[in-house]
């Protein structure tokens, strides 16, 4: 099976990858791995047709929850990460009551407001959130050994492997959800909401479900981040990062599962590696902004449309595509 071999080769490449990189590049790789989960979970939300500007704050909810659980209650770190995701999902369910009274542009702005309120609450209340300085000295992931490999979490490489496994499992679950009847219903809620409603689909419940699942995985990505960097503060989850997530999803394209991930990887590599190596430190935002504009002007269906063209030539036909964003 050649497809099977491609997967094996990709896996080997991902395992070998950090060994060819400098320390700072290894750290970027860890952040990239975490961001892949963030942007993939964001896509699940966009499946139902809603674009949120609060997703990064929800990620922060996972980070704060996990950090506080370990710090105040002494919860074992991997358990707290999972709980961070659960709490993020619960907060999302709470937020869905006001937010899903809105649609489209109003949802976009409403989610931004809700997110900012949460973020400002972290800033305002020093107990327990630590105020503007945030939470410091978050417990790291405890070291452990799996026989042939000794995990030492002060090494970015070790954390990359750990986060990689967690993210891979999460991506697999997200993919299974999308391909399940529930995932198909999400599509229906987006493209045929009147028809779906008339067919007895509880549209509001499915939108809430997508929002909760997406938020849960965003929460896990936040917890992964918190226990790696060791300090979190409200500014780490501000609109700047949200704008990046939005850009990754749009530049990559949201018609396929891999589109947003592709956007995240390609833009991060360009931004962090290529421009940094070229010594264009100050010009990085300028070039990044130009890339955003050029890609939206000349590649409106995202990077994934290039991939689709290439693969279609090899295997004519294939799965029906979603039409590009409205």
């Amino acid at each position: 099976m050649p497809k099977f071999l491609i997967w094996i080769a990709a896996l080997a490449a991902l395992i070998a990858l950090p060994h060819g990189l400098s320390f700072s590049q290894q750290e970027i790789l860890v952040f990239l791995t975490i961001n892949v989960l963030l942007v993939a979970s964001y896509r699940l939300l966009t499946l139902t047709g809603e674009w949120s500007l609060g997703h990064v704050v929800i990620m922060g909810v996972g980070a704060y929850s996990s950090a506080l659980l370990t710090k105040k209650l002494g919860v074992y770190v991997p358990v707290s990460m999972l709980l961070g995701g659960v709490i993020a999902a619960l907060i999302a369910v709470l937020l869905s009551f006001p937010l899903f009274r809105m649609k489209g542009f109003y949802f976009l702005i409403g989610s931004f407001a809700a997110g900012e309120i949460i973020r400002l609450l972290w800033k305002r209340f020093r107990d327990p959130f630590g105020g503007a300085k945030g939470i410091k000295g978050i417990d790291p992931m405890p070291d452990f050994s799996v026989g042939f490999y000794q995990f030492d979490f002060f090494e970015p490489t070790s954390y990359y492997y750990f986060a990689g496994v967690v993210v891979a499992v999460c991506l697999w679950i997200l993919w299974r959800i999308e391909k399940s009847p529930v995932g198909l219903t999400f599509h229906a809620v987006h493209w045929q909401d009147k028809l779906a409603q008339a067919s007895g689909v509880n549209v509001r419940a499915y939108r809430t479900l997508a929002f909760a699942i997406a938020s849960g995985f965003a929460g896990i990505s936040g917890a992964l981040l918190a226990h790696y960097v060791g300090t979190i503060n409200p500014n780490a989850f501000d609109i700047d990062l949200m704008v990046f997530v939005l850009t990754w999803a749009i530049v990559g394209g949201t018609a396929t599962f891999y589109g947003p991930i592709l956007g995240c990887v390609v833009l991060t590599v360009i931004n962090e590696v290529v421009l940094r190596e070229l010594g264009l430190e100050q010009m990085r935002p300028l070039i990044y902004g130009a890339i955003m504009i050029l890609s939206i002007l000349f590649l409106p269906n995202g990077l994934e449309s290039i991939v689709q063209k290439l693969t279609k030539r090899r295997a004519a036909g294939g799965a029906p595509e979603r039409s590009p964003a409205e």
Partner: protein
Amino acid sequence: MLDLLAQTGLNAVYAASYISLVAVGLVLIFGVMGVINFAHGELFMAGAYAIVALYAGLNVPFFLAVAAGLLFVGCLGLLMEKALFRPLKDNPLGGLVASIGFLMILQALAVMGFGVRMVHIPPVTQEVIAFSEKVRLPVARLYVIIAAIVLLSALWYFLKRTKFGWALRASAQDPEAAALQGISITQTARIAMFIGAGLAGIAGALTAPLVSVNPHMGHSVIVTAFIVIIVGGVGSLEGAIVASVAYALVHTFVTTFWDGVLADIVGLSLMLLVLIVKPTGLFGSADRA
């Protein structure tokens, strides 16, 4: 106590003035072009840097520098219209992403040209109007208030009483019908973009000597403008002005009597409340979006 109330009221009037200039521009652009201009805060910032370059740098007289700032930022608006919003007319998310890209470029240019740190601008005038011992209004703030009243009245006259204004409002309500009547949609889009951007620019230019000018100053401005246009009703100019005054009052009073972060929370909560109860805003109709 009465002094404090009066002083806080004066501060609120000043805040309402520059907020309404920014918000009205944002509403105008949204109404005519149907795009959310995320770079609007950076247009404000560009206006402030025009003052840094011309007034503080080259010693150009202040009001000449303000006029130049207005023209400069207005032209930036024309550039955005031509390069970004016109090609992306059928792609609402596209316009949003493109304006974010433009915002990053403007910020980077400001950093490269003037550095990250805040710039000191010599005060335009030290004069203060003293109503009493504790109630004072610096004349520099009075300029902002006067500018807001004059410019917004002029805009109102332009929109409601001139032929161009009629055309502009017509294409905001129904672009296709307006085009069938022989109105050039491109032309009205250009005018709206120039005015909208120019208003943000002049607000930035006039407030530059009063605030800390830095490349990231647009951030809080755009958040405030969003709150105001949502509360006032997207697409309603009157709503934007009324909401600016209301928001400035609430925000200034909460800041004075409690603290700034709490004031931000209150502002955002108000916006969320309006979105839940009446998403079209206090003055909005369900025209656009």
